[in-house]
């Protein structure tokens, strides 16, 4: 363990970090010199053992994890604090947003939500011709990527089909930037096929946007609405999430003697400890930090009543497989019906627990369940309720295995479906897969187009075993370098790499 001063020194002298990154890590280290918000001994121990986890958010929560301002307020009324008059033109509206983003904190210091952009900008587009709109959005997009370079910064468009949404999709496919992340809210009743087909072509080009099941999300929130932020969190608009804590289901399962003990005793115990951890952090933010005295609240961009607590879970796959082992059953999560059903039962129990447990200073008095997508140092623990990397079945089997989980995770759940590059010749298939996923209850649809196809190339089926045998023969005729390169290529393909990186994945220095 480094002493605090030498750790600070190593951050300051780390040549691989930018000045801004150093400042962020220094701030976090300084925050962590303070005592943690009060925890009882059992909660403290569970946190130290990392059965429950605070995402390393820091010891003294002084801003919410995720803030989703209602940017229509500043576009309608301007801001006294920022000395901004209400914008009247498209250029002024975008300029106002560009300023606003720099005053919206989050756990990483970058804004994670930049608004329902089509709805925000459409009122300023009357009389703006298509070429001007395109050029304006193109520059706006470039600005976002270069000044707020975080893959978790998230823009929303839809559910209506409109010219701003279409222009954003066009620009996003052309520029292929990491930032901003983008979600199309889709509702078969109001969106129409056209915008979904365009989104499918975009996914084939750049793996964006995500597509959100608007009808399901809208039902889970209220008239003020919701937003999709960061790496798949669904939260109240004009609010957000005070904190995100999570339960490592694998660690819970390891501590249970079997299925009955897991459900009857061990899981409820750790859920309660995670509720306590969450409440303590929320109390600090609301009662001590002074965050809600700031201009964002005073001017009505956010409302302190609209901040939820995200109750995250992860490592469902390992939890199910651990319990299967303890019960002497062979079936694996993602592939075996009984194993999948056990996972669905765990989700139902989690949902019921969250629904029953009152929380103070939390939107609607209850936390929201969230399938948490992981930190970069999670080892042998699969994000959320996902099927372990590299073992996923085809997208249809994948969706059907996981769809029954989705109804329980109001604060967001995401699966990454990997589709081979042949999809670029057939984006209609993406439309069909998306409709199938939504009809099965999926809350959101994310596709990663693999840059290599090992299984199917032309209209024929191609067996993996053929490729393996062929490559072995090829390798024996050539030198070991080629063999090694091929093996690496194969491994790289079979073990899918993280699709994006971003600040949230690396919460602290040296973690």
């Amino acid at each position, binding site marked *: 363990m480094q002493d605090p001063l030498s750790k600070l020194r190593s951050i300051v002298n780390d040549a691989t970090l930018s000045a801004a990154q150093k400042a962020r890590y220094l701030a976090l280290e300084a925050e962590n010199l303070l005592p943690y918000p009060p925890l009882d001994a059992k909660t403290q121990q569970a946190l130290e053992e990392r059965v429950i986890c605070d995402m390393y958010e820091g010891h003294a929560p002084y801003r919410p994890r995720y803030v989703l301002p209602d940017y229509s307020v500043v576009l309608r009324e301007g801001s006294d604090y920022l000395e901004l008059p209400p914008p009247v033109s498209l250029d002024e509206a975008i300029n106002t947003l560009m300023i606003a983003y720099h005053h919206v904190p989050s756990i990483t210091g970058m804004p994670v939500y930049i608004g329902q952009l089509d709805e925000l900008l459409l009122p300023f587009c009357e009389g703006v011709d298509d070429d001007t709109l395109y050029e304006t959005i193109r520059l706006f997009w470039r600005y976002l990527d270069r000044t707020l370079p975080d893959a978790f910064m998230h823009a929303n468009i839809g559910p209506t089909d409109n010219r701003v949404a279409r222009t954003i999709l066009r620009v996003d496919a052309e520029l292929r930037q990491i930032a901003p992340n983008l979600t199309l809210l889709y509702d078969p009743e109001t969106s129409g096929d056209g915008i979904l087909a365009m989104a499918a072509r975009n996914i084939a080009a750049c793996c964006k946007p995500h597509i959100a099941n608007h009808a399901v999300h809208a039902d889970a929130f209220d008239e003020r609405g919701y937003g999709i932020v960061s790496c798949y969190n669904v939260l109240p608009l004009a609010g957000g999430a005070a904190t995100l804590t999570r339960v490592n289901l694998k660690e819970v399962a390891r501590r249970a003697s079997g299925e009955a003990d897991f459900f009857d005793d061990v899981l409820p115990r750790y859920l309660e400890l995670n509720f306590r951890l969450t409440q303590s952090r929320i109390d600090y933010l609301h009662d001590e930090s002074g965050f809600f005295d700031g201009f964002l609240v005073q001017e009505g961009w956010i409302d302190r009543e609209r901040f939820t607590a995200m109750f995250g879970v992860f490592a469902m796959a390992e939890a199910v497989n651990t319990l299967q082992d303890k019960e002497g059953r062979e079936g694996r999560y993602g592939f075996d019906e009984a194993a999948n059903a056990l996972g669905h039962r765990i989700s139902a129990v989690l949902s019921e627990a969250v629904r029953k447990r009152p929380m103070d200073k939390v939107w609607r008095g209850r936390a929201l369940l969230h399938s948490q997508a992981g930190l970069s140092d999670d080892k042998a623990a699969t994000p959320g309720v996902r099927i372990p990397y590299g073992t996923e079945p085809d997208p249809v089997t994948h969706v059907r295995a996981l769809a029954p989980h989705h109804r329980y995770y109001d604060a967001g759940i995401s699966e990454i479906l990997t589709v081979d590059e042949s999809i670029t010749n*057939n984006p209609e*298939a993406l439309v*069909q897969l998306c409709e199938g996923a939504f009809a099965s209850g999926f809350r959101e649809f994310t596709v990663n187009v693999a840059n290599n196809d090992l299984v199917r190339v032309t209209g024929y089926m*191609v067996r993996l075993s053929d490729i393996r045998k062929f490559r072995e023969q090829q390798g024996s005729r050539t030198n070991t370098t080629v063999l090694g390169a091929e093996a690496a290529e194969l491994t790289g393909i079979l073990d899918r790499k993280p699709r994006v990186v971003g600040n949230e994945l690396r919460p602290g220095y040296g973690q």
Partner: protein
Amino acid sequence: MNSVRATVSKVLTYSIVDGPGNRLVVFLQGCNFDCAACHNPHTIGECNHCGDCVPACHADALSLVDGKVVFDPSNCDHCDDCLEACPIDANPMVREYGVEEILALAREHRPFLSGITVSGGEPTRQLKFVVALFEAIKADETLAGLDCFIDSNGSLGASGWEVLLPVTDGVMLDIKSFDSALHRDLTGKDNAKSLRAARLLHDAGKLHELRFLLVPGKTDGDAELDALIDFVRTLGGDVRVKLNAFQQHGVRAVAREWAPMPKTGVDRAAERLRAAGIRNVVTPAVYV
């Protein structure tokens, strides 16, 4: 009634390369062409129960019962050694399916499906089954909206297509070569039937895609490409032409000596077609 059964090599409920959208694909066993370039040679032959595959199976999934090869899928670990052992390019792992079993799969996966494709092998060799299957799909209210496609080598005669086309929405047809001698060399059969089928299907408005496999030094020369261009021109209209690139994996020994078709060569061929006024040319998205 739909009592007719089919010999099936494989069924997929997810395919994005066998027609528009996501498709349920039924690969029917057996082909009347014998293409060296076939990527799935184990779909060509039909099992004669010689039993050579049984000792090759290390997982006890194959046995000889009353002179017949019997396959137990629950033991199979998909090593494919039996396919290597088969002297006639057949597949002891084939299954018999009735129409109703395929319908049940289609219903189960309906929200994910744009349509159904029969492929192979050469699916039209099991014509009765294909007709029965497509008729049943068209008659089933829960499957309304699914279209029915065929992936064919075009060897079926006019009277066969006459039965099939009323229940078929589209055909993807392979032409292996426009030179009849070369075609015989590549497939073991003449190309006249395939060319006739392409015209017939195009005239009926059912030719979804004309496919042409580019093999370096064999079918990627100017003469073949110009013959392809002429043929597409005489068809008229906006034919979708899919250029496929020969790759070595999966093919049998003789074709492993052939060079794989590089992307540059495919792009050059596509350019030649486009320059000749063929607008709808599709090239592979992936090269292994």
